[in-house]
């Protein structure tokens, strides 16, 4: 591990573009010079990095674990993710100061707990928000299950007292009882469905409350074209709103369900091709600020079910970056979209730029199988396939250059 080193010949992502063949100087793990070293710079190591990409380390805004597990953190690191927002779930409600404090990790690798807005994440009573934030929660989170709009409004006002950020996965609970998008595929297959209005009607209603209360809200894992429109309008009005989309919703649409493959059982569901394209456009234009993994590792039994009863979720830490590469290669996203994985989410979550870096080899092929996979969840449609693009090294603040073992 070298604290002071030079990277030669790599492509460097400056937030907008990949700038070619740069020589980059690092000290104590921080970038201190581009093409020109600072005065008196004596490197401990010179690394030949031609063909590789230097990117700010990834910041993942949505991770759902059943318990805080070192295995999953290693999987995140392997994927180039150095900061992750741990979302509450019914298994891990993160609704008491003790639970929040135990989930906090702030070293060169950060796990930032997002606490539940309501007790037991159940949508009935407000959680002790002030104390949760004090204990280390970086934000609060809710799904569409709050009991009433009166409770939503009170929750918004109370959270605004602490200038807290609220993550919301908008899905109106009485409309969200199906397992697939209400579109041609699921209607043909006879799967219980969730109409797109389940997401957009709650999103629209909550935007009114944002306008009225001024609370900062981040809408997470959007799935509809109409949601992109609503967020764009809200931003144009000057509302303190940000949004993200999960990588799966950029890669696939409802048609993949016709194979009955439960690895595509997701919440929110995969929607139409036109929804997918609008989500991609949203990322490209910046209306959608971030792309998340929504990493949800599940045991085999959870997916070994008929489709409607399978647990929703995908293991996606390690496929996040290769997937983005795929989308850029196919021309579905511009190079600048790389910022949706690091700069933009980091700014939302922490109000600062990412402090670590990763070195990516965009050409190396690796098989998605047991020996290369760190997560305990194998619930990915990429299982058994060969992906292109792997993180070969991390540059950690204060610690420096650290290679990731190759396969």
């Amino acid at each position, binding site marked *: 591990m070298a604290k002071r080193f030079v990277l030669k010949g790599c492509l460097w992502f400056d937030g907008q573009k990949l700038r070619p063949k740069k020589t980059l100087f690092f000290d104590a793990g921080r970038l201190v010079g581009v093409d020109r070293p600072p005065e008196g710079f004596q490197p401990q190591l010179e690394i030949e990095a031609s063909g590789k990409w230097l990117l700010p380390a990834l910041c993942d805004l949505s991770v759902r674990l059943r318990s805080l597990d070192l295995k999953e953190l290693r999987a995140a690191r392997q994927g180039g993710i150095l900061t992750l927002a741990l979302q509450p779930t019914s298994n891990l409600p993160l609704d008491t100061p003790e639970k929040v404090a135990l989930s906090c990790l702030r070293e060169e690798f950060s796990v930032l707990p997002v606490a539940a807005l309501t007790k037991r994440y159940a949508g009935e009573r407000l959680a002790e928000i002030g104390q949760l934030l004090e204990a280390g929660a970086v934000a609060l989170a809710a799904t569409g299950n709050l009991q009433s709009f009166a409770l939503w409004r009170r929750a918004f006002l109370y959270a605004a007292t602490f200038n807290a950020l609220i993550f919301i996965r908008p899905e109106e609970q009485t409309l969200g009882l199906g397992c697939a998008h*209400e*579109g*041609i*595929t699921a*209607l*043909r*297959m*006879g*799967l*219980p469905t969730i109409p797109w209005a389940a997401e957009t009607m709650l999103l629209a209603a909550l935007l009114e409350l944002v306008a009225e209360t001024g609370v900062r809200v981040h809408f997470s894992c959007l799935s509809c074209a109409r949601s992109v429109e609503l967020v764009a309008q809200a931003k144009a009005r000057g509302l303190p709103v940000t949004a993200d989309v999960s990588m799966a919703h950029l890669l696939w649409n409802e048609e993949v369900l016709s*194979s*009955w*493959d*439960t*690895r595509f059982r997701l919440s929110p569901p995969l929607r139409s091709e036109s929804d997918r394209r609008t989500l991609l456009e949203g990322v490209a234009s910046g209306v959608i600020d971030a792309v998340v993994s929504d990493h949800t590792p599940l045991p*085999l*039994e959870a*997916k*070994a*079910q*008929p*489709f*409607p*009863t399978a647990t929703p979720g995908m293991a996606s830490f390690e496929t996040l970056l290769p997937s983005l590469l795929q989308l850029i290669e196919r021309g579905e996203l511009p190079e600048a979209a790389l910022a949706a994985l690091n700069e933009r989410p980091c700014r939302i979550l922490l109000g600062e730029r990412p402090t670590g870096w990763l070195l990516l080899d965009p050409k190396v092929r690796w098989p998605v199988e047991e020996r290369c996979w760190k997560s305990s969840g*194998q*619930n990915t449609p990429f*299982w*058994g*396939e060969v992906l292109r693009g792997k993180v070969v090294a991390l540059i950690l603040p204060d610690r420096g250059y650290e290679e990731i073992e190759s396969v």
Partner: protein
Amino acid sequence: MTAVRQTLGRAENPERHLITLEGKTCAFMLDLFERASRFEQALAQGEVPKLLQGRVIATLFFESSTRTRTSFQLAARHLGAEVVDFDVAASAVVKGESLLDTVKTLRAMGVELVVIRHSSSGTPHFIASSLGETVRIVNAGDGRHAHPTQALLDLWTLSRHIDDWHSLKVAIVGDLLHSRVARSLLVGLKIMGVQEIRLIGPRTLLPPLLAEAFGAKADTSLTALEGVDAVFLLRLQRERMSSDDLPSAREYARFFGLTKTWLQKIKPGTFILHPGPVNRGIEIASDLVESPTSLIWQQVTSGIAMRMAVLQKLFE
């Protein structure tokens, strides 16, 4: 347990199972019609060949059903097969591994074909993807997805009264959204070459995209029955009658129930079909059930012969 296979669709060899009519051909359908006709004759003459002597078949019904289950059991017995009946209580939801374990247990006892009915769409696909290489699966109804043998017997019944499928105008009335019979019928009708299909029901039970998914037209009134040669009436389930989908059974009967008045308005010789059991006075007026153009009782009696045809074909 091994990791979920890459493409579940590949694991099920379509010839070993009858899970859905999707992907089947007109030749497949006609072949089953032909076999069913022969079995019907054999049954009438009391001379059924024991083609499945020594074979063991199980019925595994997670949703209660006397008619379909009995129909399959009789079909199997007529052919000389041994029948094992596993009647799991409807309230005991058997999921995932336990579902597979149940089928594996049957297989270990020598069962070679399982007739399964379950409330989750995709259950037979799920079982076939893990165990399909060693046990044959017949879908007797999975959630809203499919009920292929019902559609087969319905279409076979109709086939004996019509000349040409292409010029046929067909309507399906009722709760399309929740109906596996309707979905299988729609697939089957398209395979036979029917061009014009009209779906009729209230919007709560008939999303327009559903019609589009099957290349049919959606309508919200029985006036759309005009000019139709055959109408399939779907059974209105009790739980649907007083749900948010419909205010009452009376309201459904008033606006979507087939009565003599409607028939007179639209076309005299229209065939009437209903998969049964019939809710007299709701989907259909009582006096129409036995009317000259009603094929309902023929449907009831054709079930056994068609299921014999299916069993014979899967064991070949």
